[in-house]
């Protein structure tokens, strides 16, 4: 039954599904695992950098991306689709800044990205994005971690995993996560969670970690300063890996 309704994106199947979105989710679930964990004082996102061949220069592959100074993201699924969404997210953040001269709050930016993804489930001649995103941001409400799916739905998470090993990873996280976890522990936990389903050697060149931590401060003139999202350098990752060995 699904076959007859799976070719046209904009047609519902009798069971009420948009089958193209189901297929997009399959693309996501065959991508490498990504983890996101929210701590009391920040967020960590991490992903595998799976090199297809040893000849690949993995220092130039960028999976964890900075959207604006207080928001970053990572994905599971199709890399090229992700690149399009990075650009759309960055432009949306700058458009917000152009009007308000402030960084967008995480929830606002997530809504923009999600509505772009939703557009591609309702327009003619396009297909949904084959990625799920983990968006981590720190605004005046504190640290927030969101997952956005190909359908355009989004949820806030305390800790989550997407991609190939998400089921096992989420079970692992359910046991290890508690609401008082601090960022250092969260990074440690994220690495351990990735390690669970890791194929091959986990080194500072085969995983990528992004963090955002700190506090919201106010300058003398009243302007608000938000913490900055950054990627950990390979040597920092190496130190964390040494700690779990």
């Amino acid at each position, binding site marked *: 039954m699904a076959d007859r309704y799976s070719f046209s994106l904009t047609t519902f199947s009798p069971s009420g599904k948009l089958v193209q979105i189901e297929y997009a989710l399959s693309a996501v679930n065959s991508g490498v695992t990504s983890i996101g964990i929210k701590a009391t004082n920040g967020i960590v996102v991490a992903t595998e950098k799976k090199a297809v061949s040893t000849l690949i220069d993995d220092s130039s592959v960028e999976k964890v991306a900075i959207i604006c100074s207080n928001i970053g993201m990572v994905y599971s699924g199709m890399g090229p689709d992700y690149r399009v969404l990075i650009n759309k997210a960055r432009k949306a953040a700058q458009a917000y800044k*152009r*009007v*308000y*001269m*402030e960084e967008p709050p995480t*929830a*606002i930016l997530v809504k923009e990205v999600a509505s772009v993804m939703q557009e591609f489930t309702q327009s003619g001649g396009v297909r949904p994005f084959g990625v799920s995103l983990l968006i981590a941001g720190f605004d005046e409400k504190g640290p927030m971690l969101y997952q956005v799916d190909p359908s355009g739905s989004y949820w806030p998470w305390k800790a989550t995993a997407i991609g190939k090993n998400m089921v096992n990873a989420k079970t692992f996280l359910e046991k290890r996560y508690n609401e008082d976890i601090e960022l250092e522990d969260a990074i440690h936990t994220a690495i351990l969670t990735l390690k669970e389903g890791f194929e091959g050697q986990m080194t500072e060149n085969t995983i990528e970690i992004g963090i955002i931590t700190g506090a919201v401060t106010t300058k003398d*003139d*009243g302007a608000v300063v938000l913490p900055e999202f950054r990627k950990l350098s390979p040597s920092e990752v190496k130190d964390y890996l040494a700690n779990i060995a």
Partner: protein
Amino acid sequence: MEYRVPNSLASLSGTVHKSIMEYNGGAVVAMVGKNCVAIACDKRLGVQAMTISTEFPKTFQATPKTYIGLPGLATDVQTLSEKFRFKVNMYKLKEEREIEPRTLAHLVSSTLYERRFGPWFVEPVIAGLDKENRPFICSTDLIGCINFAKDFVVSGTTSNQLYGMCESLWEPDLEPEDLFETISQSLMNAVDRDCLSGWGAQVTIITPDQVITRTLKSRQD
């Protein structure tokens, strides 16, 4: 027989448009006090020399603790006050919080600059308390250049007179009651030297606990 020939400057009505910003007239001033701000405006609406209304205040509430003053061409005053009400309401619905005065200033600035080559003929003034109840005032020109002031801001056809009055009367850290007196005297005496402003005044004092708007009776000329 007297014969009136329209020349290049005078229209058939016998009146002259020097500047579109002076067509309706108006004055707005805002001042910073100790943990409070004040914003005041006149209430005249005129068509050049003729006064047609004495109930045209030019200050509008944006949020419970922030006000915008809009002197200039009256039609743009009305349109922009409605536009900003729309934008502020949408902001509140999307962000689930009130807009801060500093953010509102940038919103006003970008709204005006969108019309850089066919501008809105208003020069807004913004006054409010931020979420930490710190005073904030600023003004912009008609194409959105923000002037962040620490003491006072003035706008409208009476701006020169207001500069003179504020510069002499204002001092830092005035309590709300004293700030009310200072801003009222600055406005009243300034508009008495401007034929296009006056006919009553409205003064709003914003403190962390309350917002009080008072109407002043002034010279009705």
